[in-house]
């Protein structure tokens, strides 16, 4: 329909418009002294380099390995996660929810993009997108299938819509055959998606 071509064209002109717009906004805010551009650099660096889902993987691996920590995580996730050094913005009030053979947990923010930054970093584009936000609460089984996750038909699916400042971390099920693995090795099995609930932990074979 001449449509794809048109869309490509749109995306390009769009990008340059928004580039100009962001540049203008930053220059105004900097010129007025409201924003220090070096602070922007520091913010970006924090989330591009320092904070990411490896943090959450450590939390999960510890919960898999240490029953006392797991219990702490269940009863006071904010404190248990803070004990590993993961604190602050968009993780002020944490709740950990545990998958079981009977129940699978999945997290969404239908109203915006709430996501536990200190343990997972910034959300992926799909998490913030209309297709995910619209369907996660209506058809979570269909959404999971798109992620390649096919649960038994009898498994309960529990969706957590993050409508307040509470942030949810899914504790995926520990894969079979991982007895005796170190926390570090276990952490390798914990994917970002498994902590959102759109994936499962990897099998140990997959990382060997």
């Amino acid at each position: 329909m001449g449509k794809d071509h048109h869309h490509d064209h749109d995306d390009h002109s769009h990008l340059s418009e928004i580039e100009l717009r962001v540049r203008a906004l930053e220059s105004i805010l900097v010129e007025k002294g409201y924003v220090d551009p070096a602070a922007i650099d520091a913010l970006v660096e924090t989330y591009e380099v320092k904070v990411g889902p490896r943090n959450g993987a450590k939390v999960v691996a510890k919960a898999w390995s240490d029953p006392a920590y797991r219990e702490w995580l269940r009863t006071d996730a904010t404190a248990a996660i803070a004990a590993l050094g993961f604190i602050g913005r968009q993780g002020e009030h944490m709740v950990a929810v545990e998958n079981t053979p009977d129940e699978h947990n999945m997290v969404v923010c239908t109203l915006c993009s709430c996501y536990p930054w200190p343990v997972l970093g910034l959300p992926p584009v799909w998490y913030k997108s209309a297709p995910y936000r619209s369907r996660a609460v209506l058809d979570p089984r269909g959404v999971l299938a798109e992620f390649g996750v096919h649960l038994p038909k009898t498994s309960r699916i529990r969706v957590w819509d993050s409508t307040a400042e509470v942030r949810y971390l899914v504790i995926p099920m520990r894969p079979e055959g991982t007895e005796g693995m170190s926390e570090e090795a276990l952490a390798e099995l914990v994917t970002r998606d498994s902590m959102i609930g759109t994936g499962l932990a990897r099998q140990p074979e997959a990382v060997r």
Partner: protein
Amino acid sequence: MNGAQDLGGMMGFGPITIEHDEPWFHAEWERRAFGLTLAMGATGSWNIDMSRHARESLPPGEYLTSSYYEIWTKGVEKLVVAAGLVSGEELTCGQSLVGSAPIKRVLKPEDVPAVLARGGPTERPIEQPARFAVGDRVRTRNLNPQGHTRLPRYARGRTGVVELVHGAHVFPDANAHGQGEQPQWLYTICFSGWELWGEQADPTVSVSIDAWENYLESA
């Protein structure tokens, strides 16, 4: 408000686009938009509920055809104008035309780690005891405010069960409109898929929202 941000249960957006090895940012302007949104937030000129409302009150067609950081950028533009920090004319011509307005604080790079670590906790002590307890059956009110709310349309007028009690938290419906924090008890309310989506829903599904006490009545 019943804006385009309230996406739960909508249809027609197509499949989820999953990007493997996704970068944190897809272009330099996204980095700047992200950073300047957080840096301006740190000036204390508005709160997070005002930010969310600025974004969700974009016209629905614009909201749904703007990328994520485009929405953030448009949100900051609205907020700086509303706060009297930048004029519409300055945004139009892309440069500062007059002196700056007073601002509470400016985020310095060396303070970034401490500011992020502090975050913005929303729990507040209140004297009033919680009206509901875990296990209580509650019904969400059918609220349709013109202003900000965190009660999505799909979960209005529905009966569910209190699953968690989170303490009292800042009430966004008030805080977004300069009416103060008005902290209230916050609960996780769990609904069956049937209750939310009718008899044809997947019987294995349940969905929760986090709901402030004002959103709820006994059921």
